[in-house]
């Protein structure tokens, strides 16, 4: 039964998916031994066809499915999808082809990330594809988009104004740095160096420089955007926050900033270092308040908007009372406004980007897909996987696989972990999807009844090799391979009159580390003879239409 040979394959060019001599081996630690999980399987699937792959646990059927997907890549052999050999592709090329080839897994709950919402999970393939187009990886993609938006907006300002802004920003950076240096010079006389100086002093300097750099870029963006942002957008940020939380935040922020200003002015005489420290502290305080506010009220954008505005307000106050001259004040106003913009931009965007992007761009598609698989989008999108039943989770998996509009769907025991009643639902859903989207299925299962139901062609696998391939009706009616017969007789019939003793299996599955020589099934085969251990049988057609790899088949050969 060690079916090598390709007699059962349809001519080249006809099959959508064609697997030839697929071998998957796993090394066992440092022992040098190898698990022969899949040893030379050849298989083809026509467009629109469903091929069922059956066999006992451990026969390598799931490994075959995963090897076709390239996780991990097969040890040798070829996987042709639309005449393109997937095993020879680079990672990038493979990533581009992935959408055509999707997979559904056995354990529906485990195949969904417990920390992400259903809407997020179903949109994930789209996000991956989109990020592939935008840039590599989430961070770079985000930066790239952000930078392009930044440039686009900056371009809308007239050129003289841009030059002026750049000059102002440079001036401000120089000013901040010189003031900071000034602050350092006072070290010996003023409070700057007091007790916590060695802890606070250096970081404050770093923060100063960092702020100056941020402000340098921020001035540009803010001024350009301030003229462009429509009022609705701003009020849209602020609207969702509850008045009570907003008021509470405003009140405490005002109190804190007043206190800071009072202390700073009163006891320290407007020393620059202390003013900056007050500003930094205020921003830190308001940021913490923002965290609290967003924890209380999930409308993060609104809370962040309010908090950031208050931060810059408090920051301004500190500077204002410090009695700076008019020009400096103007620059500081610009700077803190830029800081405001940046806090909103960075915090809100970074936090809300995934969600908003998913919702705005992919939400209609995600909802449609969920509806197609029979879930109510409104109640499902925001839920987490652990709130779903097994059947529901499998529907979500199907939706996730189908959202990329794949050509081939590999179903790795998709119903084995489900209740019997839910199995039927899921199988019907798969049939519907197949018709609706013209899918081609490779259906891996150990349940013969399920396979017979859904398949146009069945392949029986044993210990990494194929035994028999054929149409389900003829294969089930006239099994040619002793192993197929054994599998069929092992089906549990709900009839007490049938004697279960005849279904007894001769022995356990041999080890895949050192499989039997010749025909791999010979150790359990009732018809085995000496010849079986010496030569490996090849795939041959039978008179009734299936192909079998056996020296002594149960059906006459054609």
């Amino acid at each position: 039964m060690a079916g090598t040979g390709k007699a059962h394959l349809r001519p080249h060019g006809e099959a959508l998916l064609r697997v030839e001599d697929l071998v998957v081996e796993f090394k066992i630690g440092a022992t040098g031994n190898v698990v022969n999980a899949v040893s030379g399987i050849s298989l083809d699937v026509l467009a629109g066809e469903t091929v069922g792959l059956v066999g006992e646990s451990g026969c390598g059927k799931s490994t075959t499915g995963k090897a076709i997907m390239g996780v991990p890549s097969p040890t040798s052999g070829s996987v042709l999808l639309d005449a393109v050999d997937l095993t020879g592709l680079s990672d990038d090329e493979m990533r581009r082809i992935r959408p055509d080839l999707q997979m559904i897994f056995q354990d529906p709950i485990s195949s969904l990330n417990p920390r992400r919402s259903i809407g997020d999970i179903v949109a994930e393939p789209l996000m991956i594809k989109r990020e592939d187009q935008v840039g590599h990886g989430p961070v770079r993609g985000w930066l790239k988009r952000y930078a392009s938006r930044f440039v686009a907006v900056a371009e809308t300002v007239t050129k003289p104004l841009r030059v002026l802004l750049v000059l102002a920003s440079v001036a401000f950076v120089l000013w901040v740095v010189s003031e900071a240096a000034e602050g350092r010079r006072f070290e010996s006389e003023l409070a700057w160096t007091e007790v916590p100086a060695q802890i606070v002093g250096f970081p404050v300097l770093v923060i100063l420089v960092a702020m100056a750099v941020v402000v340098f870029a921020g001035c540009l963006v803010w001024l350009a955007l301030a003229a462009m942002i429509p009022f609705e957008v701003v009020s849209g940020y602020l609207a969702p926050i509850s008045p009570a939380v907003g008021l509470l935040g405003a009140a405490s922020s005002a109190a804190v900033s007043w206190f800071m200003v009072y202390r700073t002015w009163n006891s320290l005489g407007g020393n620059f270092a202390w003013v900056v420290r007050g500003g930094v502290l205020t921003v830190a305080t308001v940021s913490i308040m923002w965290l609290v506010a967003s924890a209380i009220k999930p409308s993060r954008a609104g809370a962040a908007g309010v908090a950031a505005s208050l931060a810059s307000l408090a920051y301004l106050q500190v500077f204002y009372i410090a009695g700076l001259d008019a020009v400096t004040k103007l620059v500081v106003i610009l700077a803190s406004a830029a800081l405001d913009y940046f806090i909103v931009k960075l915090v809100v965007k970074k936090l809300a980007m995934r969600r908003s992007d998913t919702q705005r761009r992919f939400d209609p598609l995600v909802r449609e897909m969920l509806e197609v698989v029979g879930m109510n989008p409104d109640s499902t999108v925001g839920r987490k996987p652990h709130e779903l039943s097994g059947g529901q989770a499998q529907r979500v998996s199907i939706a996730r696989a189908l959202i990329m509009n794949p050509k081939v769907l590999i179903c790795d025991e998709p119903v084995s972990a489900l209740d019997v009643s839910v199995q039927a639902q899921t199988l019907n859903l798969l049939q519907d999807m197949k018709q609706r989207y013209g899918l081609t299925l490779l259906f891996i299962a150990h349940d013969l009844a399920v396979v017979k139901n859904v398949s146009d062609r069945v392949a029986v696998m044993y210990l990494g090799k194929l035994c028999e391939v054929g149409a389900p009706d003829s294969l089930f009616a006239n099994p040619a391979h002793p192993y197929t017969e054994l599998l069929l007789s092992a089906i549990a019939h709900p009839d007490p009159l049938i004697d279960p003793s005849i279904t007894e299996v001769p022995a356990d599955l041999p080890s895949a580390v050192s499989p039997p020589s010749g025909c791999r099934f010979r150790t359990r085969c009732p018809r085995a003879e000496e010849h079986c251990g010496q030569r490996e049988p090849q795939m041959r057609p039978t008179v009734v239409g299936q192909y079998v790899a056996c020296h002594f088949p149960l059906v006459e050969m054609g």
Partner: protein
Amino acid sequence: MGLAVDGTATQTPATTARSKQVGPVLWLAVVYLSVLAGAAISAVVLPIHEPDATFRGTSRDGPNFNHWFGNDAVGHDIFSRVIYGAQVSLTVAAVGALLALVIGGGIGMLAGYYRGRVDAIITAIGDATLVIPPLLVAISLILFLDPTAQRRVFFLIAVFVLLSIAPIARVVRASTMVWSEREFVLAAKTMGAGDTRILLRELLPNVAPALISYSLIVMANLIVVEGAVAFLGLSVPPPTPTWGDMINKGRTDLDVAPHVSLIPAAFMVFTVVALNYLGDRLREQFEQRESLL
């Protein structure tokens, strides 16, 4: 949690309520830590005595209206010194734990995800460092390298980070290994997600609770280590007050003025207990959610 055949509500309200329950002790810990951290951060602007000021004739005074926690042998205000001491303790511990969280978390995730030889080497180094008592390492490093007093804080942090990386990486590695086995990681691979994406989007959210809760416990340990180092006079040098130094200075007066040592000691104990409790509760919360699956 009951699994409906294919119905809607599968989670009973009781489990939802339980997983979100926040007990009074947890609140107490959070409030205590926030107040302490807030006071330490804003110590320079708080209306409290200068930590260096010596008040004439108040030596070893017990708590009173002017000096809430009393005074030490020199006449320093203990309340003010406790708050300024928290600056050192919390900064060193928090920065140390944070850096260790980032570095150790990163190393642990990489080792747990990629496995193989890199993992073996990292694990071996990690296990080796785990055998050495951290306090001894800290003390001998400080004594041996004897950095200038100015840079003592950064040196302390560096030593603490080095000591904390291995235990954090170990926890994260184990957690990452478990989560990498789940099928959603395989599913992400079949969708074409790269390793960076899988690590950040699929694994990190699942590893984060363990990482954060364990880092809190590491932070508590660092506070104790800092205290011990300060007790030996090897932490941030005077005049900067530290809890360990305060305990040390009050040691000789334990019979006549026990509050000089006991008050900073109590704060250290409360802080460590609060951090440990917080870390434990976070982990519980996390495990509870897991068990629902």
